[in-house]
């Protein structure tokens, strides 16, 4: 034989082109059911009687359906989270503490900007409510005389109006006393929440450029109206003042902080970093990262926390802008922006405010478990704050960006986006109207900010327990106040009073950190093992069965059909071409295969065991033992080569 032929036959022998296990689909099914590893199928074939067979078919199908259903449930509930709460006892990082005076600027330094406004506000109050200037501001009289006879600048731009409920669409301008016709929409600041019974309401009108489109804002109480009105003008004025000047006009750290004590060690103004807030002036942050390493406490209790005494000079308060006295404290993360207006604990004067903290840390899982963002990079809003992402930052940034887009200028109480200016009348005469419209749209979620912004995935939260006590006590105030005055030294030239001071204690109540962590409830391993459990429970099936099913139902099935079709086509062709000579069908080979099962019997002990030749063979002249047993052996040796092949494979 030629070597090529040899190889060919060898290949043919080793890799016989065996088709499916059965010639027909029915045979295939029968073969599958008998040989499969799953349990139900076999019973269909072996059962006797139609009823039983039907029952078993039913059972098997039910089991398959159950498996599919349960596995679907498992897949759909894959992205669930389990929450674990852990409490660690450890050394804790002290949070950043931002302290602001409620009043933003010293009134004495800022008054020359606000003189006209103050004058007009007083007049408004006078004409609205008819009370004389009863405020006990020493200088008030002198100031009011200055702007006498001047054209009212502010109320001209935004007039304060009194509305009479009886006369729809009519309002009285209290400066001129003339009745004005009010067009456009009247927005009652409070009326959609509750009904106002009073006949007269106060409000102001905001108009766009051409004054044809006006919106009027009314308030149930004159206090709100005047404060809002004042605030609008105040923001407008302060927007034009440069930042350095504003910082100088506000309180210095030395002035605000009389004493400071942290973790048993003295600290002073140098431990605080300045943070200028547009509405609250100079704020000071303790334990900000910029300074040095983050301070931490290794003991709980008020001694080991931050103790500060603040100097709150009530005489320098702006009478119209703020109506409460004291300071605001915000406890936040070092890289977090302190939202002084939104969150913050207010501190009373002549009191010690003791704030005990508990730290809670939360970690959420991001996509696909929940809609949260790790660092805000996947939120399409530019962070205009110089701080880590938070939902609030996103909302404010979103609003500010929209404001710049729509109104062309930025709102004063939030940071400036790049290449934008704060709004003021000179450049943007109708910004206020624009702002109010935009603000309304924002509150009613029409701007889409709320849907774009996601919450942050991890956040730290300090739960506060605040309690108050009198400070200084009656007997200790006699010596305490002079010493504190001495401490302040040059900063102030007056004797401190009880009401000028506020004491603040911020401390960890204990060093337990509570962390709330979400973790995936399911892992891939769990899912697979649950699949395995389901498959095993209903049908004693495994991945192997699945492969079997694929093999039998998708490969063999179609190959049988294809073979059938091929044969039919061939027959048809042969009949057409040469009717006398039909070609032998190809099927015998497939039919042969079941017969091979007999060969698959175990090899015999003797043949399988390659023992050394028996001793007897060494006898010379022994004829080859050619008995009938040998013939049987040949069959086994054939088999043996087969198994050897397997080994080689």
């Amino acid at each position, binding site marked *: 034989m030629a070597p090529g032929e040899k190889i060919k036959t060898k290949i043919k022998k080793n890799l016989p082109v065996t088709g499916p296990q059965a010639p027909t689909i029915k045979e295939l099914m029968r073969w599958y059911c008998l040989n499969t590893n799953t349990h139900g199928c076999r019973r269909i074939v072996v059962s006797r009687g139609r009823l039983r067979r039907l029952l078993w078919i039913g059972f098997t199908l039910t089991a398959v359906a159950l498996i599919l259903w349960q596995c679907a449930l498992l897949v759909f509930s894959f992205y669930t989270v389990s929450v674990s709460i852990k409490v660690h006892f450890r050394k804790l990082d002290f949070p950043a503490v931002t302290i602001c005076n409620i009043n933003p600027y010293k009134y004495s330094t800022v008054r020359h900007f606000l003189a006209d406004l103050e004058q007009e506000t007083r007049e408004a109050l006078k004409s609205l409510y008819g009370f004389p200037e009863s405020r006990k501001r020493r200088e008030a009289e002198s100031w009011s005389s200055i702007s006498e006879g001047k054209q009212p600048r502010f109320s001209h731009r935004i007039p304060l109006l009194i509305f009479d409920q009886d006369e729809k669409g009519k309002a009285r301008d209290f400066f001129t006393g003339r009745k004005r016709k009010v067009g456009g929409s009247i927005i009652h600041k409070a009326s959609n929440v509750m009904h106002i019974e009073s006949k007269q309401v106060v409000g102001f009108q905001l108009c766009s450029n051409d004054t044809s489109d006006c919106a009027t804002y009314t308030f149930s109480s004159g206090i709100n109206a005047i404060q809002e009105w004042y605030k609008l003008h105040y923001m407008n004025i302060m927007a034009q003042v440069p930042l350095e000047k504003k910082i100088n006009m506000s309180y210095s750290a030395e002035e605000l902080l009389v004493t400071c004590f942290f973790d048993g060690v003295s600290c002073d103004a140098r431990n605080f970093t300045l943070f200028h807030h547009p509405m609250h002036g100079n704020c000071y942050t303790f334990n900000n990262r910029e300074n040095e390493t983050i301070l931490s406490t290794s003991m709980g209790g008020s001694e080991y926390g931050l103790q500060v005494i603040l100097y709150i000079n009530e005489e320098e308060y702006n009478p119209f802008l703020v109506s409460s006295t004291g300071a605001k404290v915000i406890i936040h993360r070092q890289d977090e922006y302190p939202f002084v207006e939104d969150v913050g604990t207010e501190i009373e004067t002549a009191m010690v405010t003791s704030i005990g903290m508990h730290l809670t840390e939360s970690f959420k899982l991001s996509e696909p478990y929940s809609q949260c963002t790790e660092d805000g990079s996947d939120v399409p809003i530019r962070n205009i704050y110089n701080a880590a992402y938070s939902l609030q930052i996103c909302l404010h940034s979103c609003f500010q960006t929209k404001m710049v887009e729509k109104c062309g200028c930025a709102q004063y109480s939030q940071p400036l986006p790049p290449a934008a200016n704060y709004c003021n009348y000179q450049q943007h005469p109708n910004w206020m109207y624009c702002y109010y419209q935009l603000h309304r749209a924002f509150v009613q979620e029409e701007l889409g900010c709320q849907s774009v912004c996601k919450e942050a995935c991890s956040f730290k939260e300090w739960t506060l327990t605040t309690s108050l006590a*009198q400070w200084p006590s009656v007997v200790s105030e006699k010596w305490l106040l002079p010493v504190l005055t001495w401490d302040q030294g040059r900063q102030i030239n007056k004797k401190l009073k009880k009401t000028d001071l506020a004491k603040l204690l911020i401390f960890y109540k204990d060093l337990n950190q509570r962390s709330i962590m979400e973790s995936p409830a399911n892992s891939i391993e769990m899912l697979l093992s649950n699949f395995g459990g389901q498959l095993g429970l209903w049908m004693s099936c495994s991945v192997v069965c699945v492969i079997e099913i694929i093999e039998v139902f998708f490969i063999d099935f179609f190959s049988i059909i294809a073979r059938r079709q091929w044969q039919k086509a061939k027959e048809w062709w042969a009949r057409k071409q040469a009717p006398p000579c039909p070609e032998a069908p190809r099927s015998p080979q497939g039919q042969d295969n079941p017969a091979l099962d007999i060969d698959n019997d175990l090899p015999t002990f003797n043949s399988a065991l390659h023992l050394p030749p028996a001793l007897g063979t060494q006898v010379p002249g022994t004829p080859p033992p050619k008995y009938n047993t040998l013939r049987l052996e040949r069959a086994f040796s054939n088999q043996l080569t087969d198994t050897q092949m397997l080994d080689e494979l």
Partner: protein
Amino acid sequence: MLLHISPAYFKLLHGFLPWIMPTNGNLGDKNFQMGKPGHREGATMHVKKYLLKGLHRLQKGPGYTYKELLVWYCDNTNTHGPKRIICEGPKKKAMWFLLTLLFASLVCWQWGIFIRTYLSWEVSVSLSVGFKTMDFPAVTICNASPFKYSKIKHLLKDLDELMEAVLERILAPELSHASATRNLNFSIWNHTPLVLIDERNPHHPMVLDLFGDNHNGLTSSSASEKICNAQGCKMAMRLCSLNGTQCTFRNFTSATQAVTEWYVLQATNIFAQVPQQELVEMSYPSEQMILACLFGAEPCNYRNFTSIFYPHYGNCYIFNWGMTEKALPSANPGTEFGLKLILDIGQEDYVPFLASTAGVRLMLHEQRSYPFIRDEGIYAMSGTETSIGVLVDKLQRMGEPYSPCTVNGSEVPVQNFYSDYNTTYSIQACLRSCFQDHMIRNCNCGHYLYPLPRGEKYCNNRDFPDWAHCYSDLQMSVAQRETCIGMCKESCNDTQYKMTISMADWPSEASEDWIFHVLSQERDQSTNITLSRKGIVKLNIYFQEFNYRTIEESAANNIVWLLSNLGGQFGFWMGGSVLCLIEFGEIIIDFVWITIIKLVALAKSLRQRRAQASYTGPPPTVAELVEAHTNFGFQPDMAPRSPNTGPYPSEQALPIPGTPPPNYDSLRLQPLDVIESDSEGDAI
């Protein structure tokens, strides 16, 4: 088939047995080496037979070669993959072989993950919120001032005079010369003086003793030079040890802090020398402090309070501590069912330099636990009504190995000094005990603010002149705190009381008059008003609508979880179970057996070959060999062969003489017991 197996098997057995039972000699020989009496021989025969049977059964197994074994295993195992390896064509065989291997390794990998997860001892947490009847928390109340000034004045007289002189000196240096002639006790002062550090010249800071010129008799350079305020000068405390040779300065940025800290240090020193009983008497008595008490609908009074002396706050009173009597439950939420207290703090009698805050310090804590009121307490202000809604926040940990915590503190290597109060373990107690322990070790005396172990003394200037320096060092030492934090463990059951605090003015303008009258009448039996707004505090403590929140840990992965997941994985990939593992183990044992058998056979054949090489005579015939094995019933009879010769005429034609007949029925030659075992093996 047996026909073929038996000779080889026999031979194998023949070679193998001597190895197993060396004393018995060759099996083939009927004559045993050791001549034994008849009955004994019979007994050994029985034992031997029995052993042989067992041996055969073991050896039989599923086959005698690795291949047979493998084929048998694949055919009969319950796992799904191997079955398919043997029953199909070579291509599929290869595929299935690889698939089986892949699945097996997947199963192993996943099992590893599960076992590791199990051994990480994770916990899952269950949270429950609701209302149930619970024990009302223990309420500790203290006055912010530890002592009544009128009673403790005599102890603090020297110190107060000194303090006043210091204040005068700080505030008005030029004036103080006039009053400096006062008789001051400078022994206290000299021990730890306050100094002014003049930093106006940053390169040469000057240290000035506040009284430097007075008691030393030295005249200061000039009074005017000493005038400096907080910006120019810093106050500091000089702490010296080793008879004043080694000094450190503790700096303060503010004079207020400096004098307060100094005063507290000195006062501590004084109080440490006074027996506690006297101190208790100088503090506020319960009947004066607690004016009215109502728990639920039941009236209570100062007798329901347990007194405890707390160095910072003097006498503190604990309501519902549960030490001697049963803890009181509260079955309803709301103010009406809680504790209502009216307290008098007597602000006028405060120690002026010791307490600058006026109010009541209070704390809610668990029954039988020590109140660390200085750390966890809150204030209640005088002239107000403070309402405190309580939510009990309980945390229950699993303990080792799930979370590192201790049930009763017995395994913590710190002696609990608070155990004298018969209180339960808490981490605060541990940290403080640890500090006191360090204090005693380093400074040889205990700090006044912490409890004292037996046989030790509180620190004071007289007995331990260096203590202030030592204490200050220790207090500032971060390493000390870290060691303590490292040693102390959390308690497994942790209860916190979350409070919602609200305040209102009390008494109101309208009711003020009669309330003060009634209270004065009750307390002092006087018709005049002896109380004032500044001294009176009202407290309401009650359960909120939801009064508990329990966080309970449970094992996230228990053994059932582990087993079901292992089963799931094995089932998913291979359709296997524990029995399959046992099958596999069985196969491995068989495998080892086959190896042993093969090795023995090899050794035997080697030995035989060597023996043959040395054997000079003619080789033994088959008949001889056979006879050597079994010599019964051996008849080399050629006659029965004749009927069989018909189909094989060619064989008969072979004219080789002397050939032994190889076609004898080997079955017949087999020893009886072997056949038996064979059939039994098949049956099995």
